[in-house]
């Protein structure tokens, strides 16, 4: 029997909620995607919490909140502890997305679902793979091979292929077959006949205008606004589609020598672009090519200014274009800017993706748009007076506790450090460095420790109180740490000091700007107020989501034609629509499970292995057909010494078999072929008229595709004539007769 496969959606079916699915392959549980929405609604994670501990591996497909947002929370609170697999960009950009989410939230609320430490520890165990790298899962999943493949849509976006015993389970959501500026199209089309395909119905009812037309309208709208002295706000995601938008703007500005300032404003903007610069391998061929030829990195931006806080934006007078996160307008810079700009009719808010359900962005995209919306304006303000006093008292108490803990920790880490190093010498160096710098940092250093206590109480197991110098044996580090390279290289005569990790990673970048927020030591609290914003600015939605549209999805599915198809993620109508369509045109087994409904998509495939004996093979004549070579065999089953079956030549004369005609005829190709042979051909009434009397018709191809017969029927009709036989010969030439 084939490999047993079960699919159980945990979130995101029959609606546009975040994606999260449990796929078991022969008892090995994959959690594919671990998404959350911009509201961080814990009720969505209920199903996940019930199965989190049984998950054996997590596969992430895209670096945005909808695909990986719940990872830190699930790792910390739900008992998810499986190894995680993702591509390098999904890992890096996913991390940045989570930082941005956290920082945006933290700014306006007492956000306590997860902390920056949780994000780091969740991401530090990710195993990074490259596209079409076959990773053999060890241990329990022996025999299972996973491989990420390009999905388009987002940088590093992945179509996962899980293979066991030659059967493929493919998870492909949010793929894009079109080549874009920064990404190649998906390679999904190169997979043929997988046993199971899990895909989304998100865009089943959507159709897009051509890229060129859309790009033109996009730029026109922006230009029109700025020329009329208005500002343009593009609410964008942190590190996903925004890369494409930046490239569009950058290229257009370059071509037309425009001077209107463009700003990219997220808490991690500069890191995002820095990483994008080093991900050229993952981008489109044209970007790689231009780099090879001219060494011009496409993400070396000349016209887009990267900002990590709002204040600099305010200094710039005149019309400007701002790309700011979050796309949902629920939080982040985009929220604040929207509130500020909404009242001016000159301004434009240009949405490039559909807002998540029940978010401000979604509301504004409705038709007609609301005249006024209620928003919650929240500000973090410093504490004053009595509140401050109470706070400080509290802090002092906590600090003492923390200090104690720190000392213990330091002792421990020293001990472990000593164990790690063979000789005492480097350790001494290390200690030496630690001491002066912490003294030198003085107050500031103490303040850093506060942050951890202030913002989020570290769990007892966390190494947090050790802040910035705790030894993290893993490649990931703590957050907000500033390691000045000089600090540890100064006294270091011994150049081989690999024992001191230079791991300030992403944080180094963050520090520059958002340090003020992360390391903000002034005691503060969040003050919220309800406010009504009159929406007078123009609102516009254009589809820059970078997903294949409905029609393409259908044709891709028909091309891939899986044996079994599972539909997830998409509104109820879209799911139902695609299901009906696929039942008719793609395959007989189409499933659209409900949340927590476990469906069995084990293939009912029978198979056994045989050895092909040399004797048999020497008599087999293969005919070549594209990638395939094909032959008819009649063989007798024998047994080899080690008990497996082998096929031997028949000892009795071969019985006659029904002739098989192999080949796939496209009527259009046939027409050309016949025309090239000097036959007059034309299409008339669904049939191909050849010469004067003979007609050719093709029936039952698409309708029966994937059905039980799957055989195409060609009907050749005509009166007895020489022409008839001639055309028949041409037709036969299109097939391989076996």
């Amino acid at each position, binding site marked *: 029997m084939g490999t047993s496969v079960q699919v159980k959606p945990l979130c995101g079916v029959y609606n546009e909620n975040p994606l999260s699915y449990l796929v078991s392959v022969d008892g090995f549980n994959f959690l594919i995607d671990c998404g959350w929405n911009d509201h961080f609604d814990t009720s969505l994670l209920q199903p996940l919490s019930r199965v989190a501990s049984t998950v054996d591996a997590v596969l992430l497909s895209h670096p945005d909140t909808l695909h990986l947002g719940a990872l830190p929370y699930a790792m910390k609170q739900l008992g998810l502890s499986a190894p995680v697999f993702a591509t390098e960009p999904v890992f890096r950009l996913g991390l940045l997305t989570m930082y941005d989410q956290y920082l945006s939230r933290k700014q306006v609320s007492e956000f306590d679902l997860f902390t920056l430490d949780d994000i780091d520890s969740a991401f530090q165990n990710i195993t990074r793979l490259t*596209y079409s790298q076959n990773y053999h899962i060890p241990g329990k999943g022996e025999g299972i091979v996973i491989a990420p493949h390009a999905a388009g849509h987002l940088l590093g976006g992945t179509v996962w292929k899980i293979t066991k015993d030659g059967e493929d389970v493919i998870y492909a959501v949010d793929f894009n077959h079109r080549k874009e500026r920064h990404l190649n199209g998906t390679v999904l089309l190169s997979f043929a006949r997988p046993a199971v395909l899990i895909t989304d119905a998100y865009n089943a009812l959507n159709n897009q205008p051509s890229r060129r037309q859309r790009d033109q309208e996009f730029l026109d709208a922006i230009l029109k606004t700025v020329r009329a002295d208005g500002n343009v706000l593009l609410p964008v995601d942190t590190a996903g589609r925004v890369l494409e938008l930046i490239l569009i703007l950058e290229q257009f500005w370059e071509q037309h020598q425009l001077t209107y300032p463009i700003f990219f404003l997220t808490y991690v903007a500069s890191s995002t672009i820095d990483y994008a610069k080093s991900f050229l391998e993952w981008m489109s061929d044209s970007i790689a090519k231009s780099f090879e030829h001219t060494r011009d990195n496409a993400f070396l931006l000349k016209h887009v200014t990267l900002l990590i806080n709002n204040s600099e934006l305010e200094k710039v007078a005149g019309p400007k274009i701002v790309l700011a996160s979050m796309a949902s307008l629920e939080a982040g810079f985009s929220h604040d800017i929207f509130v500020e700009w909404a009242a001016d009719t000159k301004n434009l808010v240009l949405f490039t993706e559909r807002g998540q359900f029940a978010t401000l962005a979604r509301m504004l995209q409705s038709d007609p748009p609301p005249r006024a919306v209620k928003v919650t304006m929240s500000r973090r303000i410093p504490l004053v007076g009595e509140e401050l006093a109470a706070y400080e008292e509290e802090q002092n108490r906590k600090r003492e506790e923390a200090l104690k803990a720190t000392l213990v920790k330091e002792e421990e880490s020293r001990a472990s450090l000593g164990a790690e190093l063979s000789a005492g010498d480097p350790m001494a160096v290390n200690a030496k460095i630690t001491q002066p710098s912490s003294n030198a940092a003085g107050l500031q250093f103490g303040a850093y420790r506060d942050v951890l206590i202030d913002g989020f109480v570290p769990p007892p197991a966390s190494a947090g109180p050790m802040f910035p110098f705790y030894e993290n044996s893993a490649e990931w580090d703590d957050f907000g740490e500033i390691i000045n390279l000089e600090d540890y290289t100064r006294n270091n005569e*011994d150049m081989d000091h690999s024992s001191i990790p230079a791991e300030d990673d992403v944080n180094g970048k963050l520090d520059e700007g958002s340090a003020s927020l992360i390391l903000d030591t002034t005691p503060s609290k969040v003050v919220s107020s309800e406010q009504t914003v009159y929406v007078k600015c123009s609102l516009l939605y254009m589809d820059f989501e970078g997903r294949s549209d409905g029609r393409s999805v259908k044709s891709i599915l028909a091309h891939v034609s899986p044996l079994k198809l599972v539909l997830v993620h998409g509104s109820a109508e879209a799911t139902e629509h695609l299901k009906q369509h696929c039942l008719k045109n793609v395959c007989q087994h189409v499933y659209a499970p409900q949340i927590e409904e476990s469906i069995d998509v084990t293939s009912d495939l029978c*198979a056994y292995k045989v050895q092909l004996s040399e004797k048999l093979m020497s008599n087999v004549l293969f005919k070549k057909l594209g990638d395939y070579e094909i032959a008819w*065999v009649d063989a007798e089953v024998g047994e080899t010494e080690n008990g497996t079956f082998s096929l031997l030549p*028949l000892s009795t004369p071969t019985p006659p078999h029904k002739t098989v005609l*192999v080949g796939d005829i496209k009527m259009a190709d046939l027409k050309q072929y016949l025309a090239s042979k000097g036959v007059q051909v034309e299409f008339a009434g669904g049939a191909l008229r050849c010469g004067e009397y003979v007609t050719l018709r093709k029936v039952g191809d698409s309708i029966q595709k994937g059905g039980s017969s799957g055989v195409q029927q*060609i009907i050749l009709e005509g*009166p*007895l004539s020489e022409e008839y036989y001639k055309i028949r010969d041409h037709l036969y030439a299109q097939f391989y007769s076996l």
Partner: protein
Amino acid sequence: MASTGQPASSLKRSAVRDEDQLIITPLGAGSEVGRSCLHMSYKGKIVMFDCGIHPAFSGMAALPYFDEIDPSRIDVLLITHFHLDHAASLPYFLEKTTFKGRVFMTHATKAIYKLLLSDYVKVSKVSVEDMLFDEQDILRSMDKIEVIDFHQTLEVNGIRFWCYTAGHVLGAAMFMVDIAGVRVLYTGDYSREEDRHLRAAELPQFSPDVCIIESTYGVQLHEPRHIREKRFTDVIHSTVTQGGRVLIPAYALGRAQELLLILDEYWSSHPDLHKIPIYYASPLAKRCMAVYQTYTNAMNEKIRNQFASTDPFDFKHIFPLKSIDEFNDTGPCVVMATPGGLQSGLSRQLFDKWCSDRKNACVIPGYVVQGTLAKTIINEPKEVTLTNGLTAYLNMQVHYISFSAHADYAQTSTFLKELMPPNIILVHGEANEMGRLKQKLLSVFADGNTKIITPKNCQSVEMYFNSQKMAKTVGKLAEKMPSVGETVSGLLVRKGFTYQIMAPEDLHVFSQLSTGNIIQRITIPYSGALAVIKYRLKQIYEGVESSMDEESGVPTLLVHDRVTVKTESENHLSLHWTADPISDMVSDSIVALVLNVSREMPKLVVDSETVVNQDEDSKKAEKIVYALLVSLFGDVKYGEDGKLVINVDGNVAQLDKESGEVESENGGLKERVKMAFQRIRSAVKPIPLSGS
């Protein structure tokens, strides 16, 4: 360039099927260093590794022995890294030979390849006839080169391959090639030691069947990294503090970047040195910096983390130097200049200038080629010849500190011990060095199961792998497990090296192929009665059945279960059937018959339902069988219980007419009679109704 490696085993070759033979032929780098190029064929698939030139020769002489092979048959060409001795004959091979396969290298290799070769074309001072290729050839070759990322598995014509990090230089790869289950690992140049920016070579997950490995350093051992780094910085530090100048002749790419990282870091931690400038005089290295800054993912974890805060390749204490004219030689300084061998160029100019001052120092940081000045001064001669022909005293200190990123003996032997490949082929090493390595490795792998081979250029290594072809029977055919002796009939589908057996109906399920049916309908002019046709058909065919068409109520005839004859109108008959050779034949005979009938009309036929006499038929058949057997064997008699006794030259065979069983003491006769009877029977008996 006659082949020195004629296959020694032509006898063996006939015994084993040709395609089970794996042949590896070094076209360069066989018992030498330079012009790496290996040709490998197995199962009709051909892979070539690397395509370098020999730095000591120029023009055609520098090329690998391409005339030993047919470039047009190569499927895949894999380039391990950008060094000239591994990649520089690529533009020639792509543009000037019949090669039409696909070329792969890693992203970083491709980017640097272009810069390095353009530079090579510019600086090589050879006549136009001797030029192997020009700038345009390089640009054109760029379009043909495809990229592969580390660990990415690709498949071309059934050849599967992927690559591992090799250390050595940025983007260097080790290729693993899998053809029909036989794995071959080609290390290229590799280093198992992590340095400041590169990762150490990975240990492949799977053990290869054949490992082709470099042996540059033979049985030598490297100094530990921190010791040589300290030696390096100490020499420089003491020289410059004593007011001397330091010259570091190095090749533009590869080690140079590592040395710059070391120097920049050292300077950063020593503020007292800040006033002493470091120069690197290589416009090429400057151009390549963008590549180093971009493909950070090919580097090690440590330097990638540094990238997050500051760009480590954005040197703070090192300044580029375009030419010696710009250089203001006023006091102590450190200059890294190309070329590494001190043959000519800036490094030589500076050497000439500085060599007689004993305060100065020259640090040679890597492998130096025989015959260059750098090799000479390592032995610290008293005098050297300057470029202008004069001799000068060599007073400057000369230090040789090897930063070479090639594996040493310790790395090679542990690498091989981990992998335990049954076949090891040593390449890329001087013959002597290689011989010593072979001896030492033989003592390590003393169990005798490991073969170590050191082929010379053009000497083929032949190995035999008899692989079992396994097929997977799938779908309807596999619904029940067969037992021994049963027959299995179906389509055998081969894709790459995988075989599947399936029923024709399943073809579209398991492959992208589909089967088709052609239904034919032909109309023939005929105005007579259907009964006439039926009568005539019955004389030819056994199965002629009348029925009515369900829709139109027109009488139809089903001939031989295959062809339906129907009256279309008063003057027309129509035939329809599904195309296959037998049905086509039947339909042709019907058409002929109908046309004949039309011509012979009118003719009266007695429509008598003659019951076919079964007995008579079989008797007639028996007579024919008998007559035919007599004509074949001569002496044929009716024996007991209806058996036929055939007597040929005293050998007797008994034939059972019903079952076709033959009994005879003579095996040859038995087979012949059996065969003859089967043929006669199939000729005499009617065509079976159903084809399958």
